[in-house]
Every structure is written in C-alpha cells, then in structure tokens.
C-alpha cells in the first residue's frame, strides 16, 4: 500500500466522520468495485453480492467513528465485507461444496504416496493460463467450502499477503497458511485429475 493511497484514505475517513457532502460518493467510487468483487467471489451470486455490498457500506459508514487508524482502511473494510458475506452464508445450507478431504493426497499406512504421481508441471507451464484452464481453476475453487475459499480468495485472487489476510479474517498467520496450503493441495489434486482425463479422451 503506497503512502499516497494511505493519505487519500485518511482524507476520505476524515470527511466521512464529519459527514461531509460527497464523502459517501467518494467512498463508493473508490471501493464499490473491490467490495462487489470480493462479495461475488464469496457469494457467487449477483443479487446476494449487491445486498452484501449495501450492508458493508452501511456498516462502514456507521462504524467509521470506531475505526482505529492502526490498521489499513481497506483491510478493515475487507474484514467487514468477509464477515457480512459469511453471515449471509451461515443461514443457507450449501449443497454444492465438495469435501476437501476427498482431494487430499492419499498415503499408505507408513506415510508413502499411495498412487503414482505424474509430473504435469512442464506441460502446464508452457501454456499461458488459457480460458479453459482458468475456468476450471475457478470452478474448482468455487466448490470449496467457505472456510477455505475465503482464505484462497483473499490471498490468491485479491493478492493479499498472509499477514493481511490474517488481519482481515482475524486469524493467526499460521492458520491462514495452513488453510491456504490445503486449498492448494485440493486444487493440485483437482488439476491432476482434470489433466489426466483430458489426456485419455
């Protein structure tokens, strides 16, 4: 986060606190795209994401007085957004998530790899992330349960560092790393299966 950006946020915060005219518009202009994207990544549904975005901005405006300047404004907002989205999901029973355990690597009793392991890294490296592969990765990650998906979205899609993700989610850095690792193990396995099937056909 650049110093300039930080200063801009400071100014915006000050105007929001005072209820200055145009402050809400500015807040929206700066952040509605980001918040909407994050809400879409978690909720996967446009009307849910819209309602969540409303809630998020309402919360931000109402709580702007209690915001302490010791964390970055955007990370505070992301945190509100994630919490809002998770609250929305809590009531809904999702039946389209996969059990991540089924995609963890399988080992024998003495801890050796239970099945042969292909190295498809070179083959994939040569391709840029083409549309099909990108869509598959996206589909696979959307099937993850929230616990893992939210961490994955913040770290790998929003590009936050582990420390930032931890701050947004109120988790420890090791817990973030561990969930991210499992999400990637899952994705690795899904990609393996997908690439293998592609070859057979």
């Amino acid at each position, binding site marked *: 986060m650049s110093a300039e950006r930080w200063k801009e946020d400071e100014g915006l915060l000050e105007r929001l606190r005072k209820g200055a005219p145009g402050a*809400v*518009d500015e807040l*929206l202009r700066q952040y*509605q*795209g980001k918040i*909407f*994207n994050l809400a*879409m*990544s978690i909720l996967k549904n*446009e009307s849910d994401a*819209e309602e969540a*975005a*409303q*809630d998020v*901005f309402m*919360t931000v*405006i*109402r709580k702007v007085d209690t915001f302490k300047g010791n964390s970055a404004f955007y990370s505070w907002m992301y945190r509100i957004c994630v919490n809002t989205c*998770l*609250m929305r999901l809590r009531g809904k029973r999702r039946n389209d998530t996969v059990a991540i355990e089924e995609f*963890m*690597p399988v*080992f024998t009793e*003495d*801890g*050796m*790899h239970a099945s042969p*392991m*292909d*190295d*498809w*890294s070179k083959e*994939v*490296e040569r391709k*840029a*992330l083409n549309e099909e*592969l*990108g869509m598959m*990765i*996206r589909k696979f*990650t959307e099937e993850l349960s929230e616990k893992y998906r939210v961490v*994955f979205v913040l770290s*790998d*899609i*929003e*590009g936050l560092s582990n420390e930032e993700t931890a701050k947004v989610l*109120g*988790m*420890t850095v*090791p817990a973030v*790393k*561990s969930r991210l*690792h*499992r999400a*990637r*193990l899952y*994705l*690795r396995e899904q*990609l*393996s299966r997908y690439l293998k099937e592609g070859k057979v056909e």
Partner: protein
Amino acid sequence: MNCKELAYLLADYFDGSMDPRMRAELDGHMAMCEPCMNFAKTYRMTCRKASELRKCIEYKIPDEVRERLASFLVAATEKFPEQMEEYHLQVERERREKVLAFCRAAIEAKLSSMAALLVESHCANCRECKEYFDSVLKTRGLNGPHPEEIQEHVTRLMESLPPDEEFFLA
C-alpha cells in the same frame, strides 16, 4: 520424514520460511523419492497458476447495481446490528485448548516422532520456547497459562502437522 509429512510442509518450503535443517530433510527425501519430487513440482505449478487467475477474474459491477447502491446509502440512516466477534472468540478458545493438550503431551513424552522433531528443530532456533519447554520439563507441570508468544509458536508447529493426525502417541 515420510511422504505424508513432507506434503504438509511444502508451503513453508516454497515460501522460504523454513528452517534450514528442516529444509535439508525435505531436499534429502525428494532426491530419493520421485513421487514426492513430482508432487512438489505440481504443487508449485498449482500455486503459480492460481495466482495468475487473479488477472482474469473481474466481476464487473452492473450500472443498475451502482445506482441502487448510491441511492440506498444516501437514503439509509437506520441502525445496523453488530456483526462480528463471536466467531473469533470461539476459534480462540479452541486454539488455547489445543495448545494446552500439545504441551501436556510434550511433558509426558507422548509426542509423535514428527511432532517431537518439529519441537526440537524449533527450539534450536527459538530461545523463548527452549527455555519454556526446559523449565516445564523440569517442574513437570504447567504453571498457569502459556505466554502468548509460546502459544503462537506452538500453534504454528501444530499447524504444520498433517490434518486429523493426532500429535501424540496413543
């Protein structure tokens, strides 16, 4: 070190946060084990492709949504319920209980060999933890709550073990 343990340590291995001694263990294993080598390569490639995805996911916010959002916010003044914390409190409670169980297992020498190796390798580099475990072993008792720092370190150790694997011996 076996293949399973290696698989769950790969994140640290690739982000460079791994202690050199542990790193050498992993390198040694991979040099002898083709499945692990291939697993590590494809894991790394997965991370790379996942991070490229960021550039191509962009949900465009529809104009109507933009407009509704603006008019909603300008109009709205109602109170909003508090929405946070409860969830985090629970996570924190569970964490404390797990750390306590881990330290008990350490005192009773009931840690699995992998867990013991992690503790040993960590303590070689961390004075606080070394002193803590030494003193706890001497008095054979957990006096009061753990210092926050120890809690954090022990949590980190536990999280590098394979999931659902008990860290102590039956």
